[in-house]
């Protein structure tokens, strides 16, 4: 809760800093504020406090995911200085909207009431609609915002309708009371409880870009400003999966018969939709969009196999996935700035001109493929092991085949960078940027070698 308050306050202070025209201060202040929020967040470990008559419960699950969310946002902000360095217009509004959407994400990890879930998702989504259109004079950005907004509000409708039906059948918004109701009336649940559950699931799947509700994602990812895409692919996705897990773990695990089969189909469809479409992409951002769809499919596996250990597996997965995704986007930002394009061809010969960047991107892509000993392998291993432990052997086999397919497109940029020639000049890289890349790379390796760091919830 402290983290939520401090992030919100931080967002407001940033707006005021903008009004007072202290531009130089904004970014350092954000980093400092996020660090403070992270520390406040971690102090709540093992305290299990509930707020506002059980509207929110900050348990270890919430603390762990909040930590990952704040850390990930910090990484995005780290690259933002570079991204916006040539932009003259005021940035404080973009930064504070980003912080507000982070606040929404923090609510999504700690809600204990369906209304709070809805509030969190809306705070997050509305901020994201604004952010994806934040490149005001760019047609693609406008298109992205429009598409995101239309499909997103449609999904919100589903979610809200589902929440209403659940309330109608159980008489409560509180997760624990709903769970208690389902245990008592396991065999006499009204049919609209089932409908409500499915509608909520569809609403959440929409937000997470889970197939067959993923069609908005590639256009929105490609059109949005790259920094915002990075934010969307990581923070939004982690918050979504955390909310999904929390809701289904506390509320609906009694009635898993109602949703598990559907979710398995969603998961397989997502893995294959993402990976197969990824094969045909020529644009880096679009490819990563499909990759993020596929990864949502792997994360859904953690919800299918819901149990104690799958929360840890999901946490590890989100952390490792967002770490390398942000590194990849950070490199794309720079390449696009100097080579004016983000097609895969643009990366030709990058290894010759900018070995550090090429190495960083290779590391990220290998980790996304799941090559040991990088973080991506450990994450995939735990998700797969959890799913197999619960008896979903076929799901794991299909997911493994999906991973093999994904190797094909993750290797295209690597091939472009190392094996193709181009006469682009080297991209000038500052030392801080290089240090950022190196530290993310080291973290990726570290998380792969010592995954137990994040398995403790």
């Amino acid at each position, binding site marked *: 809760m402290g983290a939520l308050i401090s992030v919100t306050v931080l967002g407001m202070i940033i707006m005021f800093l903008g009004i007072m025209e202290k531009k130089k201060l904004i970014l350092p202040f954000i980093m400092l504020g996020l660090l403070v929020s992270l520390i406040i967040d971690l102090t709540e470990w093992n305290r299990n406090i509930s707020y506002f008559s059980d509207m929110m419960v900050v348990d270890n699950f919430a603390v762990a995911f909040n930590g990952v969310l704040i850390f990930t946002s910090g990484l995005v902000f780290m690259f933002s200085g570079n991204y916006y360095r040539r932009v003259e217009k005021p940035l404080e509004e973009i930064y504070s909207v980003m912080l507000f959407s982070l606040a929404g994400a923090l609510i999504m990890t700690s809600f204990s009431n369906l209304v709070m879930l809805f509030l969190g998702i809306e705070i997050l989504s509305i901020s994201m609609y604004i952010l994806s259109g934040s490149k005001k004079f760019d047609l693609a950005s406008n298109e992205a915002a429009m598409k995101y907004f239309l499909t997103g509000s449609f999904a919100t409708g589903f979610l809200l309708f589902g929440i209403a039906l659940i309330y109608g059948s159980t008489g409560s918004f509180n997760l624990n009371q709903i769970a208690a109701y389902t245990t008592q009336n396991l065999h006499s649940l009204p049919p609209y409880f089932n409908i409500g559950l499915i509608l909520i699931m569809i609403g959440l799947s929409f937000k997470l870009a889970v197939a067959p509700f993923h069609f908005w994602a590639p256009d929105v990812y490609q059109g949005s400003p790259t920094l915002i895409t990075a934010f969307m692919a990581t923070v939004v996705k982690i918050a979504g999966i955390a909310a999904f897990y929390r809701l289904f773990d506390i509320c609906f695990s009694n009635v898993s018969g109602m949703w598990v089969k559907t979710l398995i189909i969603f998961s397989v469809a997502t893995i294959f939709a993402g990976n197969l479409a990824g094969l045909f992409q020529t644009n880096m951002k679009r490819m990563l969009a499909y990759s993020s769809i596929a990864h949502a499919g792997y994360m859904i596996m953690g919800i299918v196999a819901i149990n104690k250990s799958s929360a840890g597996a999901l946490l590890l997965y989100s952390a490792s996935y967002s770490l390398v995704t942000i590194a990849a986007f950070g490199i794309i930002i720079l390449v696009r700035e100097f080579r004016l394009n983000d097609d895969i061809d643009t990366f030709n010969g990058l290894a010759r001109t900018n070995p550090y960047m090429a190495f960083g991107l290779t590391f990220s892509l290998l980790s996304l*493929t799941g*090559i*040991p000993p990088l973080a991506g392998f450990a994450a995939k*291993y735990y998700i*797969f092991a959890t799913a*197999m*432990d619960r008896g979903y052997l076929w799901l794991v086999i299909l997911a493994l085949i999906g991973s093999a397919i994904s*190797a*094909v497109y993750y290797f295209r940029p690597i091939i472009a960078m*190392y094996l193709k020639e181009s006469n682009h000049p080297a991209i000038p890289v500052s030392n801080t940027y290089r240090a950022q890349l190196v530290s993310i790379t080291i973290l990726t390796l570290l998380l792969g070698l010592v995954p137990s760091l994040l398995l403790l919830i």
Partner: protein
Amino acid sequence: MITAILILIPLIGSAAVMFTGRGKGLKRNAIIVSLIAFAVSILALALFHNTGEPEFSFSVPWISGSGINFHVAMDGISLLLVLLTTFLFPIIIIAYPKPVSGRVNIFYGLVLILEASLIGVFTACDGIVFYIFWEMALIPAYFIIALWGGNNRIRITFKFFIYTITGSLLMLGAIIWLYLHTPNPHSAEFSALYKVATTRNAQLWIFSALFLAFAIKIPIIPFHTWQPDTYTSAPPAGSMILAGIMLKMGIYGIIRLLIPLCRDTFGLLQYPVMILIVAGIVYASVIAVTQSDLKRFAAWVSVAHAGLITAGAFSLDQSALQGAVLQMISHGINIVGLFIIIDIIETAYKSREANELGGIASVNPKLGIFFMMIMLATVAIPLTNGFPGEFLLLLGIFKYSVWLSAVAGTTIIFSAVYMFKIYQKVMLGPVPEKVKFSENKLSGFEMTALVSLAVMVFFIGCFPKPFLDLAGPAVKNILDFITVTTN
């Protein structure tokens, strides 16, 4: 402890080589690192008791509470393969001239990482650790071929990568499944995986997954289509590592994992699989006869010989399995020798097309002699290292099925045909212009490498017993385990 040190030496060496920049003594440093690893493995050999149980065990819990340990140790089979690895790497580094293009430090760094991962594969005693090293070997191999390879390398390395990663992901699935079926608390130790009482049906699936992974790596026909292209376009050092050592990962996997894990299904699958392999051997031999590109020729020779080793291992006979281990060593030595000679020919005469060459033995007699030795060893003439292994393998197949061994035995004739044919074309006959006026000397580096290989060819050929004895108890252990536990 000594096992962990063996893995660490090349890893640390690789970091050192990579970060010392592009200065001169890179090749020298890489040689020193690989020689230190060799010395340590010799030390391990001296301290080895050969009880059949894994020795020099090093185990630290890796992920707390999950039963996954970083556990490495060596029994006789592992030790022999580690010796092969640490023996061949210095030779490969010595024989192969410094790459002319690209970042030389990265090249030697990758080679040493590859050495570390290979030692890791051969010594791992934990399923997950085994998988991690297995995959870790793929990445440096990919980059060595992709960055320093020849024509068409982009398409070819891509195919190589996709093929092998598909196989290994299936293997990962099988390992995770077994791990989850160990009694609580779970453990991924090989010893625990072996004890999982799987049903026949489950074993069929495990067999398919593991066999596919290993068959792609070896490769066994029809999973071989990546191999001739990759061997041909890889830089010589890459082909040597691939054929000399990486190929053995697959056969080692069969002996270490497939045979003990799928013991109940062997009765059902042994025969069809052996027919498949033996047919593949004949097919590869026939193709080898028709090849004139020397590297492609060596690639097919390697397919044929590796197939025979696998078929022998599948016969589940004590002496045949010992022969398989011995033949892995001999094959590694011979194929590396062949690739070194091909590389020397290609650099000196700017061609590896057998039809364009000839008479090299008369202008460069030393090379002719070395080629002759390697040729005799490949044909498995008695007193060369090819003979004892191949004999034991065929004996094992014979005990299993006379017909199969008769067909497999034809490969000896075939190997004589293709080896002598190539030798004739390349080394004898009239000397073409471009051979006559080229540099016809062996450098000191090349001499060192070839002499040490030749010594091993005859040493193993005359005294195969210590090698067979080294593998014996470990093989017996595996076979005893199968007889005790088979339902």
